[in-house]
């Protein structure tokens, strides 16, 4: 469950960073990104990517968790890269929805 959360956070982070680029913003919304939304996307993207690291450490421990983090980033980034040309809106929506659902279920199961 935590592993899935780490993956979804990494995916969300990459999605946000991706949508901060005009080229990919246009793929989803058919217009360029505004200055503000670019800033928001970038901050959100970096934060989600950074958050996925402590989640990885929680799953695997310190050293191995860091190694695992790179693997998680690779999987998340590749998934987004290959999904984007075929289903840009679904790819973006997944980035928004997945971490929320998984975070909620992690919190629910630990309560």
């Amino acid at each position, binding site marked *: 469950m935590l592993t899935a959360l780490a993956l979804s956070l990494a995916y969300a982070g990459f999605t946000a960073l991706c949508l901060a680029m005009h080229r990919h913003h246009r793929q989803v919304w058919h217009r360029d990104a505004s200055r503000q939304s670019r800033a928001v996307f970038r901050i959100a993207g970096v934060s989600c990517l950074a958050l996925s690291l402590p989640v990885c450490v929680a799953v695997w421990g310190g050293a*191995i968790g860091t190694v695992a983090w790179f693997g998680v980033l*690779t999987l998340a980034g590749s998934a987004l890269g290959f999904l984007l*040309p075929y289903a840009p809106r679904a790819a973006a929506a997944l980035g928004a929805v997945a971490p929320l659902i998984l975070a909620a279920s992690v919190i629910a199961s630990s309560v």
Partner: protein
Amino acid sequence: MKGSFRQSMAWLHTWSGLVVGWLLFAIFLTGTVSFFRHEITLWMQPELSQAVVPANAISVAFDELQKIAPKARRWLIDVPDDRDPIAHLYIWRDPGELPDFQREELNTSTGEAVAARSTYGGDFLFYFHFDLNVPSIWGRLIVGAAAIIMLVAIVSGVITHRRIFKDFFTFRPWKASQRSWLDAHNILGVMALPFHLMITYTGLITLMFLYMPWGRDVAYDGDQQAFLSEAALSTVIPAAANVPDRLVPIEPLIEMAVDRWGGDAVGRIDVYRPGDANALIELTSSDSAAIAFHRRKILFDGNSGEVVSTTDNTQWAAETRGVMYGLHIGRFSDPVLRFLYFLSSIAGTAVVATGLVLWVAKRRPKPGASGKAGFGYRTVEALNVGTVAGLPIAIAVFFLANRLLPVDLAARADLEAGSFFLAWIVTILHPMLRPAARAWIEQLALAALLFAAVPVVNAFTTSRHLGLTLAQGDWVLAGFDLSMLTTGVILAWVAWRVGRKRSAAPAPYDSRANTSAAVQTSMEQREC
């Protein structure tokens, strides 16, 4: 060299990539499957399937060693675990006593030597990965040279990739074939870049003292053993006292070690001079416990059980090397992490493959201009097919041979290996006799068929077929069969796509010539 720094790096990337491309593909692909070499070995010896590791496994191993070699120079026990349920026993005797080296695979739940079909198992592909089945050290030297060139290719590739951040998520499969292959090559390379750099560099580190022994040789004046002792990489075997003495029971020592290591299991046991008064017992922690390879050791007096010394690797450089070794081998990884390693490694293999395909695509001759393609071009294209599609065929044939060769045939291990090489030779010769596009489709389709056939042949030749193994939760065998099926499906899809693209084009080179000309004039082309 010519023009700017970036242009020379682009030149270097293209040519270094081509020179070692096929070799690197073979190394990368066999390396990728080697992450599962124990699982492959288990599948290739289905008689051992579902072997359990009892709690007293180590005692059983000790009893066996006492029986077959009560007095020896050294015993080594590779302690069985959940991935490799067999205890591997190694015995060295003093010169003059025969056999001076002996090896036994022990099934600790039965206490008997393993009775399964003779095979090299996953170890065949693992060894091929770093020595190419070439005798002596030459194979390792060739692989090492390829690894350095791979590092050069990665770094020069990153330097050449001007828009590495802008194109971070760019994949445009709808574009002209060269552009989309380049996109795929770039995205697979960049997304797993930390892995590619790490795995190549750490690969060199694992054989560091073969490739770069000069520092050690000069600093230690050639005394390798002194270096190994100081770096706590090996223990000096004591001389025999020639006074017989009993070994202390092993269980309390194991308990003490596990306790000291905070719960990490014992992975390996060395006994020096068993049965002698100078006996030493060395326990090494399991590889799966932490990243660093052979991380912690405790040396006991073999007759009294007292601790002689401990190694917790507080030496920085030695620990770093251990970590690098461990990162490459990846034994520390649990199934999820192992899968992530596997995916990144597949990405690396695909980077090499797409690079080779790109090289050919960029130089495809336009129709009308100087007629037929040159010898060099056709050779590269043939080798591309024979390696990128041919090597997977060879691997599938290797697995099929394991099931199809008679179980009690004496030389079956070598015959399995031979069928791998024979299949590969055929797949390299085939595209020299067929037009390239047809050759690709035929080999990809054959590969798909062979991989899909593996679980089917398994069902017909053993009792451990997929229906049974899934029901019993035997994930090693079931997982293997499912992976073979999945690989077959993916290859079939690729073969279909390649076939469709070919039949959609009006003439083999026409549409590609138009588009490649258009691409060539675009700014993007200068990138590679």
